[in-house]
């Protein structure tokens, strides 16, 4: 006689759950590996161009390396350090444009990598300070007028914010929740087999669940 746990592990649903889980793990590992390898390869090319003092090409590849962001990847940090160094060297030879491009690259790359958290916030702050200084030196007159608030027209053009992560998650939970509740209603209430579970085979159970999730979804899209 097979014991209960053994029966559970031989069940088709358990096997399929394991299969789906394994598949998801394989997919995530593949994506992480793809990004990591991309980052390493581009970093190596960036280093080569840096050694040959081809700074624009070095920036290109360090930028690419940073765009392959992966958590716990030291090459992202190292690429940022190289870009900072290019900026410093450019300042030494009075090439403000190159210096600006290098620091903007660090900043933009970290912005492009944000997900439910924002990597490189310290770098972003550091870069924004430096960008401000370079621009101040380059465009003293215009910069002063902007600081004084005489010409704030550009602010009207960028008055949006990124959606808030908390409400975004609420929104997604709500969306999948109410769609899932509709599936539940279809399979358990409209389905042919009625099993002796007094809750899942009543329409009000699914309608209530769908209603709660739908409200969360609407709240999420308003607040996000």
């Amino acid at each position, binding site marked *: 006689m097979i014991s209960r746990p053994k029966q559970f592990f031989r069940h088709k649903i358990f096997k399929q759950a394991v299969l789906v889980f394994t598949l998801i793990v394989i997919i995530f590992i593949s994506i992480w590996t793809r*990004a990591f390898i991309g980052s390493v390869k581009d970093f190596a090319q960036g280093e080569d161009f840096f050694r040959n003092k081809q700074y624009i090409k070095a920036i290109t590849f360090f930028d690419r390396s940073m765009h392959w962001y992966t958590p716990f990847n030291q090459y992202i940090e190292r690429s940022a350090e190289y870009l900072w160094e290019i900026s410093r060297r450019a300042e030494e030879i009075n090439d403000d444009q190159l210096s600006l491009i290098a620091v903007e690259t660090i900043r933009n790359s970290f912005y492009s990598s944000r997900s439910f958290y924002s990597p490189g916030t310290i770098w972003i702050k550091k870069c924004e300070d430096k960008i401000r200084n370079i621009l101040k030196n380059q465009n003293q007159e215009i910069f002063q007028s902007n600081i004084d608030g005489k*010409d704030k027209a*550009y602010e009207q053009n960028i008055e949006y914010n990124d959606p808030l992560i908390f409400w975004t998650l609420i929104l997604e939970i709500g969306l999948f929740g109410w769609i899932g509740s509709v599936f539940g209603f279809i399979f358990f209430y409209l389905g042919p087999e009625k099993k002796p579970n007094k809750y899942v085979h009543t329409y009000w159970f699914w309608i209530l669940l769908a209603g709660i999730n739908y409200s969360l979804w609407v709240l999420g*899209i308003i607040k996000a």
Partner: protein
Amino acid sequence: MSDYSSKQYIPITLVIITFAVYLSTICPTVYLGDSGELTVAAFSLGIPHPSGYPLYALLGKLFCLIPVGNIGFRMNLMSVFFSLATVWVVYSIIYKITSSIASSIAGAFSLAFTPLFWGQTISAEVYPLHTFFVALIIRLLIYWEDNRDLCRLALVSFIVGLSFLNHLQTVMMAPSVLFFFIISDRKNILNIKTIAVISILFLFALTIYFYLPIRTHAGAAIHWGDPDSLKTFWDVVSGKAHRSGYVFNKTYGNYIVRSHEALRIVLAQFGVISLFALWGFIKLLSLRWKIFYSGIIVFDFFYTIFLNTVNIEVTTFNLPTLIVIAILIGIGISDLLNRYRLIAIKSKIKIYQISNIACCAVPVIFMASNFNICDQSRNYTAYEHALNVFRTVNYDGTMFIDGDNNLFPIIYARIVEQMRKDVMVFDQYDLFFKVQYMGDKTPFVYYGERDDLFDFLKKIIIEKKMPYGVYFSSFNPDDILMPEDYKLIRYGILSQITNNQMDINQKKQVSVWNYYLTVSLEDNFTRDFMNREVTAYYHLNKGRHLLMLGGIKAGLKRLKLAAQVGYDDDLIHTELSSLYVDYGFFKEARMELEKSLIYCQDLAGVYNNWGYYYSKRGDFNNAINYISKAVEKDPSNITYCNNLGFIFLNAGREKSAIEAFKKSLSINGKQENIKKILKENDVNSIKGE
């Protein structure tokens, strides 16, 4: 391996392999075309072009949260995910019908590696999700057919509702699906309770459209068409705002050409393997399935050919047809394998396994032969283009953007990567970066047409922002109407607005090229039409710049490269011919003009350029002939009338010149320079105007 295992693990293994291939070929960041716009829409929970794609944006946001790579790459992964899901569902459809693993692999995985299908996995696009829904609806119809109960019918109805939230092309499946239901089980379907249940579920799915007004109101970064009133909401959802000029607007001849092209492209996807689909169709047991599949193909072609103006070479609307063909291929192969097996058993030949392996080899052949076309792993063109655009603009400058391949990468760069917040950006269609009033007179009220208002606001912006630099990002700057006293000059890959009072910093105009990212633009991977456009214009501008600096050899080399990359781009040939004429390279100019005649749909423009070519060569008779032809083709175009006038003047035929200028003024009387020319020629005829 047990039967269960082989049934489960073989397709899973193949899906993983396909995933690895897709992963190695997808674009590493934002792509050209709609990709940038869709990525921004998902990232910012915004609204892209009609029909608003709310489901795409909502699901896309989940992919944006994956903490690997950049946001453009994550959205490209979404395409990979839904393409793989489509392949899996198609596999399950074929397997359900045939119970043959080999034929299911041949059908489903061949689909995975057809250029049209594969091409959609490399970037953020709505079509992978659409194909997933198409395949899922077919699979659910088979599921419903097994046991025609209300539960399964309700499921189909809800999924059809969801699919409408991604792409309106689903409506083209509706006749086939309705026919299938009614012909299969009319009595039960046309029952009031059934109709009520499926209608409620269908409509409930559609409530996801509430996303559009709510997010517009919430101030999402992009909200095309502002769907927060009933009218604008309907315009966006129905696609009216985007598609009003598209439907049935071509000639019979055009439709014949489009039909031929569409058929050729679909058949080219599977090549000779398509013959198995024909066999599969013949061997379909049920007449209603035959009609159902035919219906999908017929309505799909109808949509592709008649309901849009997109070039057939670049359209992806035939993807549902490819799904049907893949299913039929599987069925055809399965039938032939069964026949072969019977013969093999009778004649005791033991090579049945070899035929199974041969079936599995079919997708491998597809993959190998299409890999180079679909590999976009080195394609940073959109990203580099956006970056170069921003590197051209001065601090605190202003930029007007025109054309999808300019606008969408820039939206991505600006909103996702937060590039150049100091630069004020407006788009020519006033959709994303809206034009605003920058005058001093408040409150400001304008009476007149919308287009005139746009020109008025644009003029104020230009006047106010001129000292900081005002630029245009457009592939066709010659067509941009400038306010009086202003002109456009080429500045790097952009055009800068200037007037008589303003000096352009020539040192910067030259040095701007030194800071451009060019690795991807100079690379030699296979490019689609959008990448060819951006790359060809880069070479064209670079060539023009080199010629201006006196680098004739290097400049000509670049221009030849532009012609080569943009071989089917009419504007490239037009621009090149004018440039060659300007620099006196008449042989090259003639070659480009001949190409223009092949690729350019605007023949009036081409005739005008031929006229310019002949006038520069001093052959005024031919010049007059050609420009007269241009005027005949497009009588309302003032440029052609004026050009004709100038050539008449050069040819010493003043009377004819005056007539041409008068005609031009009768079309647009606001041309002060033309009035001046008429005055200089002692003509008093303008007094009455």
